[in-house]
């Protein structure tokens, strides 16, 4: 049997893939409910490797390959693409963004209006990443747990892991060397007057913002990136910045209701890439940074590879030792 500590994104996707590969798997989760302590509940749930490429390593694009298909087998995935826009005075940000990535097309007022009628006449230029997708993180994590259970995984909620497990997926709770926390803050707004159907990114030199539609007029907006391990609730400055950026996307947000705010700590390694590492004889999957939903499928496959090779002393290229 393979035992896993942590029923978050890393633990559950690994458990599912291990069970699919024929292993008997047990997952220990300290909190009472799936996802209640997971940083992924504050995620955007974007499956947007090409937008991430603007600041992320090429490895992210490679590992993201097939992620949307993987998730679509488990949970609803909205495959509407990402629309990137900028206010008139920040058009140079669009040019900068476009130079750092690919797999997009330039769109102009008419095409933007055709994609998102609510944004017609608001933005003259944008970048459209047609192949990108998003999902609802909370639904997805729940569906992932259901899928894992169906595949035979035993998930023990409200049960702290024993001292010794085979795979540690405890995220921020892990004490791996080199792992740091990057704070993120977000808000969820209800704005029934507005109908946006796909992920919108607003480029702004100071307050870059993304907005992900959750359906029924609910929008998740975020998120800050702060090199800080404070878990306090969102600050006034961050909240006022993300709210004013939402207002810049569409003035209808002035009348929206703030139904939730949140902050979470994303575990990350110095290169901001996830790692499957061996520490004190235990395998750890950690450091998803802001790419949990995007990279969990590929990393779960690496976990399966690791456990199928175990005992044969074969060294996997991706497998590093701390």
């Amino acid at each position: 049997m393979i035992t896993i500590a942590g029923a978050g994104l890393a633990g559950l996707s690994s458990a599912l893939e291990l069970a699919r590969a024929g292993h008997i798997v047990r997952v220990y989760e300290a909190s009472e409910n799936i996802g209640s302590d997971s940083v992924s509940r504050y995620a955007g749930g974007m499956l947007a490797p090409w937008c991430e490429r603007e600041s992320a390593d090429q490895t992210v694009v490679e590992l993201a390959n097939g992620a949307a298909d993987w998730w679509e087998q488990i949970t609803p995935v909205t495959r509407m693409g990402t629309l990137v826009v900028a206010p008139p005075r920040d058009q140079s940000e669009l040019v900068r963004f476009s130079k750092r990535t690919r797999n997009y097309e330039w769109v102009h007022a008419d095409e933007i209006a055709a994609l998102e009628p609510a944004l017609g006449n608001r933005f003259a230029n944008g970048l459209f990443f047609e192949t990108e997708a998003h999902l609802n993180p909370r639904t997805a994590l729940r569906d992932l747990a259901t899928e894992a259970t169906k595949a035979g995984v035993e998930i023990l909620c409200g049960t702290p892991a024993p001292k010794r497990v085979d795979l540690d997926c405890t995220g921020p709770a892990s004490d791996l060397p080199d792992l740091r926390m990057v704070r993120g803050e977000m808000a969820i707004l209800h704005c029934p007057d507005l109908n946006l159907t796909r992920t919108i990114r607003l480029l702004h030199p100071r307050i870059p913002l993304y907005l992900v539609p959750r359906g029924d007029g609910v929008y998740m907006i975020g998120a800050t990136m702060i090199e800080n391990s404070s878990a306090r609730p969102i600050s006034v400055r961050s909240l006022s910045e993300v709210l004013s950026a939402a207002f810049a996307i569409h003035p209808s947000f002035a009348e929206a209701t703030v139904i939730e705010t949140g902050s979470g700590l994303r575990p990350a390694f110095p290169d901001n890439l996830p790692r499957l590492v061996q520490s004190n004889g235990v395998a750890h999957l950690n450091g998803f940074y802001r790419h949990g939903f995007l990279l969990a499928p590929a990393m779960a496959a690496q976990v399966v590879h690791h456990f199928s090779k175990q005992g044969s002393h074969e060294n996997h290229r991706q497998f590093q030792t701390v």
Partner: protein
Amino acid sequence: MRIYETDIATPLLLGTAQYPSPKVLQNAIKAAGCEIVTVSLRRETAQGTGAGFWDVIRQTGAKILPNTAGCHTAREAITTAQMARDIFETDWIKLEVIGHADNLQPDVFELVHAARVLSADGFKVFPYMTDDLVVGEKLIEAGCKVLMPWGAPIGSGQGLRNPDALRAMRAHFPDIPLIVDAGIGRPSDAAAAMEIGMDAVLLNTAVAKAGDPVQMARAMAMAVRAGRTGYQAGPMERRDVAVPSTPVLGLAELV
């Protein structure tokens, strides 16, 4: 360059924000041979430990110059400086007091006040200022032994908007280290600052947001050295007419 009894070989100071990852930041610092880096206390380390990111910077071996980025009053900046002294164990402080939300220009009145209080408290203050001679005089009178005039608004990448003002500062403060802080966009901007006699350049966005930050850090380091060496070598004066490089006297008689 000698600042507050510390010799600096590479006249390039780097900010540590906005890099794609801490790993890239480390590599950029290394590629530039950068000896001093600035770290924002408010953003990176206040509340919570921020220890991971701070470790990454410490591993580079660069000297830390904490800054008060994001402070809008002298009072805030003073408190932030005191926290920075405890956390980073240094009496160096890059003093930033922002006066305008749009162009992030310093509030020089609050700046001079904070500089006076902090200098009296034993801090070695690096004030981020406009290129104003009078403000420079007041800061020196307040205890600053280095001045950091802006080249252009923070993060704008516009280069030196008023090189004449920087030349005037050089002439007016011959013995005070002058560091151009903010506004540098390209290596040629950094070289230009050094060529007119600035002692160093401090920049962040130009490297962090470049397509390849590590290469850009290297380019900036080469640029400041070229500019500095050019300044020391004494550039020629501009002329309005062409002068042939080859002497015209003593030509061979061909007839």
